[in-house]
């Protein structure tokens, strides 16, 4: 880091209309000094990839409250890798503890659950960014 703010793409992936949490996270990251490219609801892996590519993003944050994380989390990671984008994915939302190993194995860089503080959110995204080559 040299003082340039991290750029984070935030989105809801698939059919999940609950975006309150994502908006809170956007504000936390903004107040943590990051630049949030907010995509909002009903995004697809393709639309997220377009945004990541055009915005030259450092991290992707996906919010999931519909129990789709085991399907869509890995799919997002694979979709980015398939087009050669080495950008870490952080998942926020309802992810049961027993699913955490599967998320890590799928290459998800971080998981944020309910009650995560602003500092934890910022630190998790920063840590994800720091894992890049």
């Amino acid at each position, binding site marked *: 880091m040299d003082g340039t*703010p991290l750029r984070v793409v935030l989105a809801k992936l698939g059919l999940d209309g609950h975006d309150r949490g994502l908006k809170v996270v956007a504000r936390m990251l*903004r107040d943590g000094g990051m*630049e949030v490219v*907010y995509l909002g609801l009903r995004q697809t892996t393709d639309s997220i990839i377009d945004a990541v590519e*055009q915005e030259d993003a450092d991290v992707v944050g996906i919010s999931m409250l519909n129990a789709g994380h085991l399907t869509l989390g890995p799919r997002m990671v694979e979709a980015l890798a398939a087009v050669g984008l*080495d950008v870490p994915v952080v998942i926020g939302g309802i992810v049961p503890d027993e699913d955490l190993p599967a998320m890590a194995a799928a290459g998800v860089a971080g998981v944020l659950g309910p009650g995560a503080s602003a500092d934890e959110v910022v630190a998790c995204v920063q840590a994800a960014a720091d894992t*890049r080559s």
Partner: protein
Amino acid sequence: MPGETRSIADLVAAARGGERRATARLLTLVEKGGPVADEVAERAWSALGGRAGDENRAHVIGLTGPPGAGKSTLVAAWTTRLVERGCRPAVLAVDPSSPLTGGAILGDRVRMAEATAAGVFIRSMATRGHAGGLALAVPGMVRVLDLAGFDPVIVETVGVGQVEVDVASTADTVLVVVTPGMGDAVQANKAGLLEVADVFAVNKSDRPDAADARRDLELMLDLSDLTGHGRSGTGTGARPSIISTAATTGVGVDELADATDAHLTALVAAGALAGRREDRWRAEVRSHLDRLLLDASRSATAGPLPVSSSPGAVARSLADGVADRLLGHQIPGGRTAGEPAEHEGGAAEGDR
């Protein structure tokens, strides 16, 4: 972008070939500022033929208006239509950074999903607060988008704050978006935003008071005709056109695309395009010079100062030192003012 190991020269070549990822990376480098941005700027300048006022470059359209006027929604509908007409539009959407934390929420893409799907290249940009930075970065980023074959290049800014208005108003064509309910004819005659427009869009024109907003604008333009002022913006001597739009339903979007095209055609016909672009080039020179002056000034005032002297007296006593710094020493960021950047073979890896 992590894993990017190509040199700037390679990135420029790839961007010219239409590679979006290389284009995005170059935009990041320009936005960052400093010597790397200078190198990108030099290479892009040469690659584009290196001539101020060149009429063959992309049509640059500045779009501004008050918050909530529907700018992003209108841009989405308009650029999607431009793609249907065979154009390759790009959008640079500028939003403010928080002055306290430096962070920003860039929300323009929320309303531009349709345009993204149609293939419009959209880049969000935060103002990043550093004085003069926006005025330097935006023209550089526009040049990169031009280099990558995008035409027109649309720069969208919130019409609050002089810098934001300036950035949009240095375009070939300035589009100002207003909405019904903005205020009466007196508001429309206040100096500022409305004076720089070549084309007006009265958005949300499906609202009942849209006719009033349009009439207020017409009245304002009538008064401009009367006094002969407030029209220096158009460059053609023509009265700005007013297009009624409703971005959410697509009403007026075709007319808007026609109006911005017509303005460019009128600029060419009036022989004013090259002049307008030379003015923009000159403003860019000024921005670069401002940056050097600002760096020297910051640097000169960073240490202890005689607190019993008046601010003006201290500044006058420091002026010689500032001049020395400008003439070749101690400019922050390493490179001295008179020395060309070391360009060859600089890799873009690990730049942030």
